[in-house]
């Protein structure tokens, strides 16, 4: 049973929001059973960072996605339509989420006890 569903919609790089949203999800995982759903430009967070950290001076927080099982987070989803829109099917991803149709997403939104949007 998902207690908290975190919806991540900010792209990486252009602001600190994506990184801070991931921090919130990790905090949630310490207290409850969470799921994460990447939607819209938020799906771009899943692309494996290609630039060296020295080149952009930002933390590659996305590499932390690989540690999610260690935080007991196993339900990681991505919006199938967004994946198509951003052409992510041929990209090298940090982790592969379970892709959901819009109908699936509605079902998950209804089933989660609470939804937190970022």
């Amino acid at each position, binding site marked *: 049973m998902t*207690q*908290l569903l975190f919806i991540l*919609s*900010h792209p990486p790089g252009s*602001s*600190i*929001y994506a990184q*801070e949203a991931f*921090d*919130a999800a990790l*905090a*949630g995982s*310490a*207290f*409850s059973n969470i799921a994460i759903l990447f939607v819209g430009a938020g799906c771009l967070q899943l692309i494996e960072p290609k630039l060296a950290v020295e080149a952009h001076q930002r933390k590659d927080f996305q590499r932390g996605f690989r540690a999610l099982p260690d935080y007991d987070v196993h339900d990681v989803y991505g919006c199938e339509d967004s994946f198509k829109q951003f052409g992510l099917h041929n990209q090298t991803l940090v982790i592969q989420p379970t892709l959901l149709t819009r109908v699936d997403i509605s079902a998950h939104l209804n089933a989660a*006890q*609470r*939804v*937190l*949007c*970022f």
Partner: protein
Amino acid sequence: MNFALNIQGSPHTSNSLWSALNFAQACLREGHRIHRVFFYHDAVLVANTLLAPPQDEMNLTTAWQTLGQDYNLDLCLCVASCLRRGILNDSEAQRFEKTTSNLAAGFNISGLGQLIEASLVSDRVISFGA
């Protein structure tokens, strides 16, 4: 109903704090409760006591302070968001050896656990995005 608010937008480049203020006022007027108002991302900038907007413009800081005082609300800021953006209470200012603190009265700085707790115990959590 018992609500938790999760506010994220900047007072200067987003409508988030204004929308949330209106929502909170309507909620409380109708007899609902607000367990906690959590300020995240750039929304913490509203708690900068040094903000000095022109007198004929909306002052979001005092509007939130007034609502908080009238209804005894928990106006809680994320400490990590605050430190990144230079919102410091006395103890953080001392800890980082800064010359001044700037946290406006009526707000308090705490951790993300407060957002999670509020989300779990409230009937609804409403996010006002960045």
